[in-house]
């Protein structure tokens, strides 16, 4: 491949790619993101190739292994173009039928289609499925149509046009102005306006400047940056290069978790390709602008997502935040001006340059423009990655796109913003998502994690879980965070174990104040949020745990008991046989009783008791009823009397 030396050559080259592609030629796209890979898309891909060869269709059908489509709950997913027929949960055994029926005969295979849970209708096209229909996939949408290992695929959908436009038609100031005007805010957590950050670096006197991609995604349950890096790495490279041009940087870094092997592989391939094509390196597209990108693999510390810790780690030292009162866009990596933005933020940049800030600002709320990708997980029917315009209500995300709570359970709260985010209760479900809106509700946007919780979730335990995560992931440098979290975890654990004392809430509040006001970095300052937001909306649960020794969600093991209602028990032996602790006494036709001394509260009996009996009860905060006398436990069955 010879280098592309000008925007005109790029357009010629693009035309060449498109002319060789027939839009009507059947193309099978298969999701090969990490989630689908785990559910077997590798085997499906192998079967597809083999079957197409076997049926002699190699020349007539294309296979494209794409990045994540987002609907991870139903993976592996294939979409057959041009008809856009969408099949879910494909196994290798389905492949011969797909080729012989759908590809050859143009027949739909009903059982592989999506069934609407409400109407029970089968849906053929991706865009008609509620999960996709209610989304606005501007950044994430291309994932489904390109092979991330192919730069030609990216060029075929208009890739690097924004870079060409910036370098040839716009001055660096104009690019900066456009991004400022778009009011693009950082997608990684803080929500700081990207344009203002860039401007600070551009205006800083130091000559050498850096641009950095923060791909140290570490929130439990969040994987949108991973999916973008794996599925569309060139979009991030293009955004980064445009940013470098705007601020006058010639060197960029991608700080990516080493735990994301596919993302590391794909971004490295993309860099190599972009260098070969002349989108990176010296004199990019003949503009005279030079820019190189290096990949740095992080060693898996959550705190390295914090900007100064990330830069310390990039410098080759232990990833600890540095005490800063000078912003890193002025004095960052090696004390030089450094613009650090998250993966998704960079991926938005080509869109803004291509379509303009005026187009971008049409989407979203007054303070938050554009779209946001959320990782929708937890007690939700449609687990996956969703992209919606800012300002979409939580209710629409959870019910229209997410399909609501499975198992007929009741919604309780949604946790947003990662470990240091907060929980938002049911009466705020109409909240429109945006940076300021979520902060006002006591949570935050964070990088876009969204964990849905149902009525069985104990909010005190949720706070304990996240504080526990943070005690592990704190760097341990400053006292309010390291020691404060240590004590908060102890108190919260005590409360969930029924050892809570009067005054615990007040002490937790004081520890929270110290961390919030005096901790060194953003991780420490926001670390008390899981406690503070659950206290704000679920104080009664804390009080029930402490004063009544009761867990209202019937979740905290130390505070619940299982017992068998003698009036409902049919002495069917099911729970008795299944109990792993042999804690159920009784026999055939003899009412069962839970031996509270032996019971490990694993809940097996509760799950095993047939719903038509519903004899096993879970209780909290009240004494276990005494077992009925031995002689009253015999059941005399009517049928046997006859």
């Amino acid at each position: 491949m010879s280098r592309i030396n000008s925007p005109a050559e790029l357009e010629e080259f693009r035309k060449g790619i498109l002319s060789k592609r027939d839009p009507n030629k059947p193309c099978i796209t298969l999701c090969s993101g990490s989630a689908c890979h785990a559910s077997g898309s590798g085997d499906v891909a192998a079967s597809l190739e083999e079957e197409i060869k076997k049926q002699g269709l190699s020349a007539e059908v294309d296979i494209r292994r794409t990045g994540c489509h987002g609907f991870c709950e139903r993976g592996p997913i294939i979409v057959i173009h041009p008809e856009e027929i969408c099949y879910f949960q494909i196994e290798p055994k389905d492949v011969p039928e797909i080729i012989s029926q759908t590809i050859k005969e143009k027949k739909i295979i009903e059982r592989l289609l999506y069934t609407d849970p409400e109407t029970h209708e089968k849906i053929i096209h991706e865009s008609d499925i509620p999960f996709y229909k209610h989304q606005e996939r501007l950044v994430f949408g291309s994932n489904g149509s390109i092979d991330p290992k192919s730069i030609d695929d990216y060029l075929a959908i208009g890739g690097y046009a924004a870079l060409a436009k910036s370098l040839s038609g716009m001055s660096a100031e104009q690019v900066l102005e456009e991004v400022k005007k778009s009011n693009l805010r950082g997608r990684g957590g803080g929500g700081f306006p990207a344009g203002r950050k860039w401007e600070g670096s551009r205006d800083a006197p130091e000559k050498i400047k850096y641009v950095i991609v923060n791909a140290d995604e570490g929130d439990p349950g969040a994987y949108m940056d991973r999916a973008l890096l794996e599925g569309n790495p060139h979009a991030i490279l293009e955004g980064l290069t445009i940013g470098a041009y705007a601020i006058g940087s010639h060197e960029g870094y991608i700080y990516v978790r080493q735990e994301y092997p596919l993302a590391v592989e794909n971004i490295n391939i993309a860099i190599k390709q972009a260098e070969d094509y002349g989108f990176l390196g010296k004199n990019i597209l003949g503009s005279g602008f030079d820019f190189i990108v290096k990949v740095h693999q992080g060693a898996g510390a959550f705190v390295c997502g914090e900007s100064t810790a990330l830069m310390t780690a990039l410098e080759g030292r232990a990833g600890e935040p540095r005490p800063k009162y000078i912003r890193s866009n002025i004095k960052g990596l090696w004390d030089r001006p450094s613009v650090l933005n998250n993966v998704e933020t960079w991926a938005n940049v080509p869109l803004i340059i291509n379509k303009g800030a005026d187009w971008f600002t049409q989407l979203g709320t007054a303070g938050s423009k554009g779209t946001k990708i959320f990782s929708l997980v937890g007690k939700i029917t449609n687990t996956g990655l969703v992209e919606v315009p800012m300002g979409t209500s939580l209710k629409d995300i959870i019910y229209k796109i997410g399909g609501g709570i499975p198992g007929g359970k009741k919604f309780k709260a949604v946790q947003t913003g990662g470990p240091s985010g907060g929980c938002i209760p049911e009466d705020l479900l109409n909240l429109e998502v945006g940076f300021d809106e979520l902060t006002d509700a006591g949570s935050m946007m964070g990088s876009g994690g969204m964990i849905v919780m149902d009525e069985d979730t104990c909010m005190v335990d949720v706070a304990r879980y996240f504080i526990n995560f943070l005690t592990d992931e704190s760097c341990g440098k400053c006292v309010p965070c390291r020691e404060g979290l240590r004590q908060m975890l102890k108190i919260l654990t005590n409360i969930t174990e029924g050892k809570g004392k009067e005054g615990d809430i007040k002490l937790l509040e004081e520890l929270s104040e110290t961390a919030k006001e005096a901790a060194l970095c953003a991780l420490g300052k926001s670390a008390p949020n899981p406690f503070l937001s659950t206290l704000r909306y679920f104080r009664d649960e804390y009080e029930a745990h402490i004063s009544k020794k009761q867990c209202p969600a019937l979740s905290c093991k130390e505070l619940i008991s299982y017992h068998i209602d003698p009036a409902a028990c049919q002495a069917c032996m099911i729970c008795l046989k299944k109990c792993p602790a042999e804690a159920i006494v009784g026999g055939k036709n003899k009412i069962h009783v839970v031996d509270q001394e032996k019971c490990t509260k694993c809940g097996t009996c509760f799950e095993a008791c047939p719903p038509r009996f519903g004899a096993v009860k879970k209780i909290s905060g009240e004494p276990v009823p005494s077992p009925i006398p031995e002689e009253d436990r015999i059941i005399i069955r009517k049928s046997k009397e006859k």
Partner: protein
Amino acid sequence: MSEILLQIDGQEVGAREGMTILEAAQIAGISIPTLCHHEKLEPFGGCRLCTVEVEVRGWTNLVAACIYPVAKNLVVRTRSEKVDRIRKMILELLLAHAPDAFELQKLAKEYGADKNRFEKEASFCIHCGLCVRYCAEVKKKNAIGFVDRGIRKEISFVPEIASTECWNCKECFPLCPTEALQAAFVLTRALFVASEK
């Protein structure tokens, strides 16, 4: 060098560009408590005991005096109800590790900190990093460092370096505010001697 005028506790104080609030206060004879600060070492900002209130454009913020740079017309309050409350909490958190450390006890008295507020923890180290940083920055030996992170973080000597460098130095010993360092050193030495046998 141009002089920057700022106000600390109502007193007009002159400082040079690049100085921290702590340095400016020290020159003016205003005392701000510290645990991890040492004049020979780079500011660390770890103990947060030097937390003070600053007023910037009408906003009141809490900042670490050992790092925060002086600025023209900056208004600093080294004591307030909130600052004292936070210092008291920091001391109580540290007293759980080193209840008998003289320096901590002295400060505890001033701020009314209760050394029994939190359950005692076995480690005596308060992670001020004085030993680690002194060895790295002044001695340039890196014989001692932090290992692990979060609540499991601790100081540890590197046996290979310590066995050759530490015997005749031990300059970090008197820096330790809680005597934890000696214990750690003795332990490593014991382990090292044991491994050689």
